[in-house]
């Protein structure tokens, strides 16, 4: 097992990124994003997020969850309160291998620090590595403190509360 989300992320990324979605609660959606839990073990999980072009999420936190994000594809401006948030447009280029030049780059998102997303015309794809410190993992989509993305997001949160 891992001691923190960074250890979990590093293990996952160097272990062939095992694709092992759980039977329980693998898929979630909001008004502008969908997620698939790719791997879950104990209090750790990694979710794949796909986001619509030109979408945003307001500042929010995921209480009790330490996260680390890993860039996969598209055009994602990920911002953390109180941090330097460089403009990612300067890196909207392919690598020599034909991938996004930010593929595999990571940003830590500690519990309690608000973050927000702004997606460009290409849409976005990233991995969310999560350590749920005080409860079993579900999805950070429904463990959400802050203004929601919209009515679909509200419904998804309500559905999980009712289970």
């Amino acid at each position, binding site marked *: 097992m891992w001691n923190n989300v960074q250890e979990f992320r590093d293990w996952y990324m160097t272990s062939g990124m095992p694709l092992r979605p759980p*039977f329980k609660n*693998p898929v979630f959606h909001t008004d502008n994003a969908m997620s698939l839990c790719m791997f879950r073990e104990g209090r750790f999980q990694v979710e*794949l997020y796909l986001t619509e072009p030109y979408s945003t999420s307001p500042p929010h936190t995921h209480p009790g969850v330490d996260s680390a994000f890993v860039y996969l*594809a598209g055009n994602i401006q990920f911002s953390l309160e109180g941090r330097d948030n460089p403009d990612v447009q300067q890196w909207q*280029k392919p690598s020599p291998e*034909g*991938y996004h030049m930010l593929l595999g780059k990571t940003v830590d998102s500690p519990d309690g620090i608000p973050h927000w997303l702004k997606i460009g015309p290409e849409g976005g794809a990233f991995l969310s590595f999560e350590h749920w410190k005080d409860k079993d993992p579900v999805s950070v989509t429904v463990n959400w403190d802050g203004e929601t993305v919209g009515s679909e997001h509200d419904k998804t949160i309500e559905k999980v509360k009712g289970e």
Partner: protein
Amino acid sequence: MKEWNEVEAFKDWWVASGCPIRPPFEHPIHITDMAYALTVYRKGQYQIELYICKPNTQTQVHAHPGIESLSVYLSGNLSFATDGAPFPDLSAYQKEGANGTHMLLGKSLESINGTPHALKVNEEGGSFLLFQRWSHKKPRSVAVEYDGVTLGKKHDKQIEVANVE
């Protein structure tokens, strides 16, 4: 460059290679009213898209001309119907398998060679991998190489964007 002579061989290679996730820079993400897709790997005429599908959704019968494909189950509750047949009843398989995964994880669902088919997703939502070989053009997404009634405004927009580029 590694080449394959059929989509099944491509799938076997990808699995044996540890399922590398290397989205291309060009056109990696496609969105419809029913599902979101990420191309997780693309090489030559071959690619793999990972589809995440919304709960309680269904396509009408449609085809992807010039594309040979093979779907592999990941999670949730979904089924494919081909050639006008009814959707298969997979309710007996909606159970937890090894390591807390879905018991159908990794199972091949349908092998489709441009033939008409439909997809139904139940209340859990669902996800699958779609291994593809494009015979006549550069791969992009089966969501935009779509012969049939589309899934709504987002789908129409996605097809329109692809046709303009």
